[in-house]
């Protein structure tokens, strides 16, 4: 069984969109106010954008995993973590340390191996 390119494209796009979900949730979370917490959460367009990005990415994943091998598609899902790491540096100025790269590398390998085991 081979993985069609369309499946890979769905999953890759989904993980790319989902990584922006994380960025928007973080940006929104930073702007929550102690006074009027509920109001500052409900009127927070960044949080709404984050949730929307997650919903869209979930739909993309759904289309993506219908065909193809999980050992290929799982790591592509997890590739969203790589995007998120770069956005963290770009938008929030977080340092990218060797610890984070090593940990992320292990997680990606682990997810790939898990995908192999699921076939």
């Amino acid at each position: 069984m081979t993985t069609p390119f369309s499946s890979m494209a769905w999953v890759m796009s989904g993980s790319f969109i989902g990584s922006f979900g994380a960025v928007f949730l973080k940006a929104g979370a930073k702007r929550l106010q102690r006074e009027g917490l509920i109001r500052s959460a409900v009127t927070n367009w960044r949080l709404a954008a984050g949730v929307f990005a997650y919903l869209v990415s979930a739909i993309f994943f759904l289309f993506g995993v219908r065909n193809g091998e999980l050992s290929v598609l799982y790591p592509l899902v997890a590739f969203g973590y790589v995007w998120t790491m770069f956005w963290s540096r770009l938008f929030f100025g977080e340092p990218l340390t060797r610890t984070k790269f090593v940990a992320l590398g292990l997680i990606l390998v682990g997810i790939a191996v898990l995908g192999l085991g699921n076939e």
Partner: protein
Amino acid sequence: MKFRYSKDDILRKPSDVAPLNVTVSTPAQKRRSLWLVFCCTLFGAAAQILIKTGANTFAPNPTVAEMIGRIFTHLPLFTGYAFYGISTVMLVVALRHGELSLLYPVIALTFVWVTVLSVMVFHDSMNPLKLLGITIIVGGVAILGRGSHTA
């Protein structure tokens, strides 16, 4: 003469109220964030299992309307989506403190819980590759957890 309000009180608008994250997060807050993301993965995994349980009860080739209706009438499906909501709220609360690049990859633990729960609930087989994959993921997350104390 005694003023009832100070000048600062009058000038302070609601938008001047300090955001929660205006100061540097304390180590305790960062640790709490890490645990919140951890709990968030538990809820996320439980949500996936519940939704899978619910989806297994669908008639063959359900219409979109039937699927949406079932979310509100079938308890496992409803609980599953509610858990997704809870895990999202937890993630937002967690993200107030700490670094996104450190907290976000922890969500990979969801893969671990889903694999373990699938074996327990759906009697999926466990094999060496799955076990190895789980172990490597947990190792990676453990490194992030340790890194959050030093960062």
